[in-house]
């Protein structure tokens, strides 16, 4: 029981960052109908930028996280402007190929810039875990959880309570009519891609100090982000949030009780199972906000 409680806490920490990754990816698909293969690389980019800011420039840890997220948004906006905007009328296959190419360029760029050796990001938190009853959690992980949830809430407020959020949801539902209302569709697309990329970079910046930073770190994470999004139902924001936490819990519990070696496999096993039973994902299309 105590062990289960511990896994629950760990799973929540992991799930929070997975949810960030998932909503970033599903948002881009929902608004722009673009399958964003660069998502995992933006995650790696966020981690490397945090490393650069903390270790190379000697900047404050918290400032570095914010900086990495903003740079991720800027990179996302650049990708949208340079690659996706000219491809607006192209078919989905061509756009996918371009995004796969961009992901390869980003990953090899990271390899070239930082080398293949994994980096460690120093953090200001004490290495001794906080112990509450049977549960112990590292302060850094607690910080990651708090920031993830703050970002999820902030994102939800942006989407639900602001004019740009309303314009984004309207564009999500009916781009042509949104244009008739005066929405600048190009602008919404840039903002959407920048926000989606920023969320991925934020997840990388948060998990970078927890794990190690390496050029291929985006591969598995990109794959997981797709799994989360498909699990939740393509284009569904609540679905991606639920899917993110579900994947976090499954990995933690299966890793803890069954086999640590195969922890990643259990997540995908769950996805195969759910899709076999409910092919439209956890949150079907008609219930999607957006």
């Amino acid at each position, binding site marked *: 029981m105590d062990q289960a409680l511990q896994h629950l806490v760990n799973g929540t920490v992991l799930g929070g960052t997975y949810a960030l990754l998932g909503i970033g990816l599903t948002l881009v698909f929902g608004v722009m109908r673009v399958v964003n293969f660069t998502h995992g690389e933006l995650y790696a980019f966020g981690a490397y930028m945090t490393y650069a800011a903390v270790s190379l420039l000697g900047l404050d840890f918290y400032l570095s996280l914010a900086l990495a997220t903003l740079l991720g948004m800027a990179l996302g906006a650049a990708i949208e402007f340079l690659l996706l905007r000219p491809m607006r009328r192209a078919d989905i296959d061509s756009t996918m190929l371009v995004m796969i190419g961009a992901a390869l360029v980003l990953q090899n760029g990271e390899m070239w810039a930082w080398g293949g050796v994994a980096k460690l990001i120093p953090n200001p938190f004490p290495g001794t875990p906080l112990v509450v009853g049977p549960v112990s959690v590292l302060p850094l992980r607690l910080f990651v959880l708090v920031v993830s949830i703050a970002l999820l809430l902030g994102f939800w407020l942006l989407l639900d309570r602001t004019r740009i959020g309303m314009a984004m949801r309207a564009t999500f*539902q009916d781009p042509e009519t949104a244009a008739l*209302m*005066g929405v*600048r569709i190009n602008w919404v697309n840039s903002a959407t891609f920048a926000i989606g990329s920023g969320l991925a970079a934020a997840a990388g910046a948060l998990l970078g100090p927890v794990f190690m930073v390496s050029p291929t770190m985006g591969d598995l994470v990109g794959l997981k982000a797709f799994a989360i999004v498909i699990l939740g139902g393509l284009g569904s924001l609540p679905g991606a949030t639920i899917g993110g936490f579900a994947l976090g819990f499954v990995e933690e519990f299966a890793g803890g009780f069954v086999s640590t070696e195969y922890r990643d496999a259990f997540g995908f096993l769950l996805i195969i199972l759910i899709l076999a039973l409910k092919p439209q994902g956890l949150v079907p299309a008609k219930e999607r906000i957006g």
Partner: protein
Amino acid sequence: MLRLEGVSAGYGRIAALAEVSLEVREGELVSLIGANGAGKSTTLRTISGLLKPTTGRITLDGQAIGGLPPREILARGIAHCPEGRRVFPHLSVRENLAMGALLRRDRAGIAGDLEAMYARFPRLRERSGQAAGTLSGGEQQMLAIARALMSRPRLIMFDEPSLGLAPSLVEQVFAIVRDIRATGTTVLMVEQNAMAALQLCDRAYLLETGHVLRTGTGAELLASPDVRDAYLGGAI
């Protein structure tokens, strides 16, 4: 007020409009009638900037507006209430109305207009927090009209406002269109229901395969034998 001179437009290589010329004067209610595929909707879509004209000139008060993006057209006072209502299904009724006023910055004016819409369409007030997709077809049409009015347009374009509505609602929609014109807003309306459209309008244009076949007052077109044969089912 609005003038189209030799405007052609289309989708890809298919020309849907061939040299259409028409005019809407300040305060008028003008109808576009014609069969399916005659280019009625394409005309409205070209005016509102969803399609770019390939040739010809579109002017509003003498200023060229052809090829401007929809946002600029709306900012110049032309609202387009699209075919099939096209309310945002997952936005609330209130948010749909707010979308109509997206370009406006006068908070007090927007709040006043919102109140006016609720007073005019009480059902929308009752359902203001509900997702627009849960409204009935008639309510959605009222919402689409109210949303278009929220931009305070000088010219409002309706595309098939009566499509798919029960007869009693059709009457109601036409009454609303008449009211809108009575308050000084100019109206350009596309209607399948040629009889109603001709009775309602000051002037009308009959479109066929992308060009203007005939024009005149509503009464003139109603009396014209070929209009009667082709579009009014022969007998009146």
